[in-house]
């Protein structure tokens, strides 16, 4: 399938008082039509900033370099007014807290219709009809009634649906969802993930799902990308990473996640704490916590290299990942 988004060599740096911090380094990935890519990693690993930079939404002290090709335009470094013609139309983003992206003083209908009027040049009637249709499509009961509500009159799950509806109105090629279900209850989360699956199928939208929950990934993602310390450390098809992880960090994450069907006596967590980006360890950033490290890891940073055909990892260790083997 055709690639809709090709990201190449993406770096994000933030200027601090008297230093700078690199939140994302050398990120490369492609996203195919209709595909779901999960971006996984712990807090502070650079997941959000990578995609905010693609959307041109970095904080003022942030700077992005590299390329993010949406078709044949590069979104990185694009002037804000030109970005506006793509944002919301070709590429859209939704966040964990829908309230921050909805205007509390406007009716749902008004906010959503405006998107269509601006990007598609619809007249008001046509826009309103399209809005109702989309609200129904994302599973909002009584869409005509709800369209006239204000955001605070809806529950958290409803608001997240409204956000998804808004993001999908212009049938964007790429939808970026940053922890879209983290604040929701499991039963609502399940409905939401179901909805994502259907929508990517029906609209051919490529979905980037940013999350720290491997359970969410397993259910919906085709491919996944694991980030640590601002870099991608392993990526590949979801199944291969789950059943045959090759990076010690990916393995550690899997062993740290409790599983409702299996009651292990103990989890096998990764030791230690995630690094701060300002003081990334030398060599492999994961080495202070890695059970498989050896001399090379302390000095040289492993590059992200292909293993087999479909996957890549950034780790010097070539043996099998079994905890018992480690002395």
């Amino acid at each position: 399938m055709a690639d809709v988004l090709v990201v190449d060599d993406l770096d994000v740096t933030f200027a601090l008082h008297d230093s700078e911090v690199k939140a994302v380094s050398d990120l490369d990935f492609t996203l195919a039509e209709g595909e779901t890519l999960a971006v996984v990693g712990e807090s502070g690993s650079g997941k959000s900033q990578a995609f905010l930079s693609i959307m041109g939404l970095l904080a003022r002290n942030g700077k992005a370099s590299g390329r993010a090709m949406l078709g044949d335009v590069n979104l990185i470094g694009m002037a804000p007014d030109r970005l506006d013609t793509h944002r919301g139309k070709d590429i859209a983003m939704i966040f964990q807290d829908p309230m921050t992206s909805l205007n509390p003083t406007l009716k749902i209908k008004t906010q959503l219709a405006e998107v269509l009027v601006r990007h598609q040049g619809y007249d008001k009637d046509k826009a309103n009809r399209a809005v109702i249709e989309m609200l129904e499509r994302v599973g909002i009961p009584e869409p005509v009634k709800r369209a006239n509500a204000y955001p605070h009159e809806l529950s958290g799950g409803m608001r997240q649906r409204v956000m998804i509806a808004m993001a999908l109105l212009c049938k964007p090629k790429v939808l970026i969802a940053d922890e879209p279900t983290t604040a929701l209850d499991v039963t609502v989360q399940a409905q939401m993930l179901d909805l994502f699956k259907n929508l990517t199928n029906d609209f051919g939208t490529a979905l980037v799902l940013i999350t720290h929950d491997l359970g969410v990934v397993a259910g919906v993602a085709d491919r996944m990308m694991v980030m640590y310390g601002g870099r991608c450390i392993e990526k590949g098809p979801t199944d291969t990473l789950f059943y045959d992880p090759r990076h010690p960090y990916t393995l550690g994450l899997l062993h740290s996640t409790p599983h409702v069907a299996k009651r292990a006596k103990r989890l096998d967590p990764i030791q230690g704490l995630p690094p701060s980006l300002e003081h990334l360890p030398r060599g492999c950033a994961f080495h202070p916590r890695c059970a498989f490290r050896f001399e090379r890891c302390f000095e040289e940073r492993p590059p992200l290299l292909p293993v087999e055909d479909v996957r890549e990892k950034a780790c010097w260790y070539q043996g099998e990942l079994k905890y018992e083997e480690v002395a």
Partner: protein
Amino acid sequence: MLDRTEDLLKIENLSKNFSISAGLFARPFQLRALQDINFTVKRGETLGIVGESGCGKSTLGRCILQLLAPDEGRVLWLGQDITKLPAEEMRQKRRDLQIIFQDPLASLNPRMTVGEIIADPLRTLMPEVNAKERRERVLRTMEAVGLLPEMINRYPHEFSGGQAQRIGIARALISEPKLIVCDEPVSALDVSIQAQILNLLSDLKDEFGLTLIFISHNLSVVRHVSDRILVLYLGRIVELADGDDLYDDPKHPYTRALLTAVPIPDPKRARQRTIEGLVGEIPSPINQPSGCTFRTRCRYAEERCAQVRPPLEVIAGGRNVACIRWQELDLKPGA
């Protein structure tokens, strides 16, 4: 050895309402946060409490510890009702009953050092312990929860979430309690840190013979740590059973809905199963449905569910379930 059959804690007919003001002249609403809660906790076990946001989990934890006064019912600690104890006697009981909170940083006083925070319950609960001994106990407890002794003079904001949670755990442990209520102790933590804290809690439990009440909205986590699991919906117990029984053979439709909705970190299984999403939203705890409060979202609801409020029945295996149709329904996973 611990006597695992003794009832350490017994909750009887506990109810808690909150008055929500509706403006100057209107009568306040009654928000029914907990209704008619009955269960026991055996010495040495871990009782998990699950349910969706707002179902009353934290309120229940706080009522057990008398941080909130229940409106009705009794909380029996070793057979003695502690809901109406005079302040001083209750203070003595607090040595045995401790709590760990969800937000690790918010639960630590930002103006105190780690040492002062951990020592705080000792200072108030056991003034007879002198400063030197207090410090030694603080250091011993810090070691037990995996904090380095040199952290003792630091301030909370210098710590990450996982370490802050260890400080909170140390504070709960220092008075050598018998029961700790853990209110979402890992919900704010990263996956790898969450696993470290879960392991730590299970180690501490074995080491000190603790009894835990583990509150979480995450069924996977609860299932991992708990011996028995209590499921709350809109302030009522809908099911209480052994962890394995609950998972293999849920008796309440809500439990089943939760089980099918829990994300599974296993792609093949995740693709195979069909998610039985619940219809609709949680009703407001102010205007609860008549009869079975779950009926507005229950796919097995019948007419009579609106008329009778299902009682919490004791069924085989020492389980409890509150559904009038539990005998006819087969809710096993895959069924």
